[in-house]
């Protein structure tokens, strides 16, 4: 049992952190997000050159063959920097879907281009009126002599207006299947917009759009990749929370009011202490999620456990970070509000707190105690 990074992992962390430190500040996020594609294309290229975009994919697919720990390291750094890149959407979600479900050719093509930074795939899955689940509801796929056609609307689709490749979930009879759709066809209509967290999304409407099945009929891919996505989101949130706590502590030390630093007010320092507790509990669970993935099959219960804690810590820390900053924390010119906003978005992606509680409540009778030592 060992919770520390090894030397190679530390080197990866330092390299990514070094790159991001040179990048744009969190408070300039909204500018990047205000137009398509909504990400920092220069930074994306640099991440590709560093090999980061191919991190979790097999070398035979053009990737680096690294594992969940490395994805965790990268997303945690992206979270710390609030870096405006679609790493989760393209690599952790869509890329891993292709890696898990795609045919050899599909993997080599899409993951190769993704790893090189020349194509961004995203997962078009959430529908305008769906809660989080692994199912498609109103988007339907039909087969005729010419192949498959997809109709219906997905929204919000992360970076859906600028993505080069859409992985689309669609209903076929009672089942949900995955398809690849080229967005540059007349049957696909896309409207992009900025999200509150200065990422971008799109409404993507399909009218008998030409689609290719992703690999075979691997319904487990969504569940499996959801677990991986949640682990990555937990790590990103951890990075964001680290910075939100750091900034709040620094502010208490330096900001003066009534002639003394805010740190002289015990009511504030005790609340900072509670934020630290939230952070450390979140850290433990974020590590747990990725370590469990690195050592065993994707377990949705472990993902729910981690995401539940991260959701609660994120809400607590996001709210308190703004409150301890006072008015300045409310402004877009200052970074802390951007962290809070991103934490809200993460909490509501891939299953919010209420969803995770439901998942866990359903498992209560499976065990006497939750065992972690084995």
């Amino acid at each position, binding site marked *: 049992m060992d919770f520390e990074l090894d030397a190679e992992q530390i080197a990866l962390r330092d390299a990514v952190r070094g790159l991001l430190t040179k990048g744009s500040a969190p408070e300039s996020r909204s500018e990047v997000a205000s137009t398509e594609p909504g990400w920092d294309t220069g930074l994306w290229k640099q991440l590709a050159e560093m090999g980061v975009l191919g991190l979790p994919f097999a070398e035979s697919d053009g990737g680096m063959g690294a594992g969940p720990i490395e994805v965790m390291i990268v997303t945690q750094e992206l979270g710390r920097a609030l870096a405006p890149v679609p790493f989760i959407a393209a690599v952790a979600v869509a890329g891993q879907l292709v890696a898990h479900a795609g045919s050899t050719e599909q993997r080599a093509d899409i993951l190769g281009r993704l790893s090189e930074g020349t194509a961004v795939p995203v997962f078009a899955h959430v529908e305008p009126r769906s809660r989080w689940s692994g199912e498609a509801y109103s988007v339907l796929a039909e087969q005729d002599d010419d192949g498959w056609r997809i109709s219906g609307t997905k929204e*919000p689709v992360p970076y859906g207006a600028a993505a080069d490749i859409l992985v689309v979930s669609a209903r076929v009879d009672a089942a949900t299947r995955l398809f690849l759709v080229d967005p540059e066809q007349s049957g696909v209509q896309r409207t992009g917009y900025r999200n*509150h967290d200065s990422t971008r999304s799109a409404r993507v409407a399909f009218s008998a759009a030409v689609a290719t099945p992703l690999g075979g009929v691997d319904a487990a891919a969504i569940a499996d990749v959801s677990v991986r996505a949640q682990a990555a989101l937990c790590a990103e949130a951890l990075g964001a929370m680290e910075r939100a706590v750091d900034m709040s502590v620094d502010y208490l030390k330096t900001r003066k009011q009534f002639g003394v630093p805010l740190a002289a007010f015990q009511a504030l320092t005790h609340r900072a202490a509670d934020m630290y507790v939230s952070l450390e509990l979140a850290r433990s669970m974020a590590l747990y999620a990725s370590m469990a993935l690195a050592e065993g099959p994707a377990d949705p219960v472990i993902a729910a456990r981690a995401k539940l804690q991260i959701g609660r810590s994120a809400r607590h820390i996001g*709210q308190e970070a*703004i*409150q301890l900053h006072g008015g300045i*924390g409310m402004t877009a010119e200052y970074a802390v509000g951007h962290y809070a906003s991103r934490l809200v978005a993460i909490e*509501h992606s891939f299953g919010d707190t209420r969803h995770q509680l439901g998942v866990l409540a359903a498992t209560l009778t499976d065990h006497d105690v939750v065992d972690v030592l084995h």
Partner: protein
Amino acid sequence: MKLQLSSDDAAFQQRMRTFFTTEVPQEIRDLIAAGRHLSRDQSVATQRLLNAHDLAVPHWPAEWGGQDWSPLQRHIWQQEMQLADVPPPLAFNINMVGPVIAQFGSQQQKERFLPPTANLDIWWCQGFSEPDAGSDLASLRTTAIRDGEDYVVTGQKTWTTLAQHADWIFVLVRTDPDAPKKQQGISFLLIDMATPGVSVRPIELIDGGHEVNEVFFDQVRVPAANLVGQENRGWDYAKFLLGNERVGVAPTGQTKALLARAKSYAADSLADGTTLLDDPLVATRIAALENDLLALELTQLRVVANSEEGKPHPASSVMKLRGTELQQEVTELVVDLAGPQSVASFAGDDSELPEWVKVATPTYLNYRKASIYGGSNEVQRTIIATSILGL
């Protein structure tokens, strides 16, 4: 003890309800209900309508448009206005500068300013906060130096709400830098925003909106006739103003209206084949919030039903603290109801997401301010601990 309204008060309530739900244009009320902001013109038109019906400044002195209402009736007026999604008259005008001018201004100032202030012919903004002051308002640094018939004002204000719409600003300025205490040597000035040397810089907030501003004064010449009351007594007027501010500070009606809408959102949201309102976790959360709001409203009613004029009821300090907590909790609930779509706050008109989903997170983020502005909740706790509990 009596819980029911007197027949007079019940009739008053009915009169208010009828007016607000039938006389105020539906499109204005729909905008408020949708969590959207009004344009300047819409705000002005609404306040003028209220003022035309003597419903804009009921708490002002009778000679300036006030009504001889009991505190309970004023509360009913406010509740019914909020429950009907009617935008309240501009607080800077009717709760802040208006009462200060009516109480401390010269006869000339009253005649010049009060009628257009009630009618929103003048849009006021508030110049109290400064960048380095925070909750320590009295440490302000903007100076006003007497020069002949003018004051020359230099300095910076911040968090100035809707300064971009404002015609005039009321400011606290330091007129005697040598006063022994920081609360002394402060004066209360009225400044025309069109005066040379006044400039406004917008501050973008985390919800993406433009609500507050920085206001800069660079050698701005202000006629001495625009001094309210006595020089160096401005802190007294500010305390009077802040005391008034707290009365209307727990918008329980507005929060109730939002919670009622949240309930309809939940009933309209499908989850696993049923609606979110059928989910026991959601239903009990809403039930608890309804109850929390009821407890707060009853506390507010205890204050208004049994308050002597001018003597603050001990429970009133609870209102700001708890009122903002509940406001925030309800906005938090709405984000959770919006679920995975809650991220899509700036989706356009062709989006298939309901309007309430789009405003959910910006509203949540915006209302984080509620526990910061107007005396942070930490300041409120300190007030309760010291003034009420004697700690």
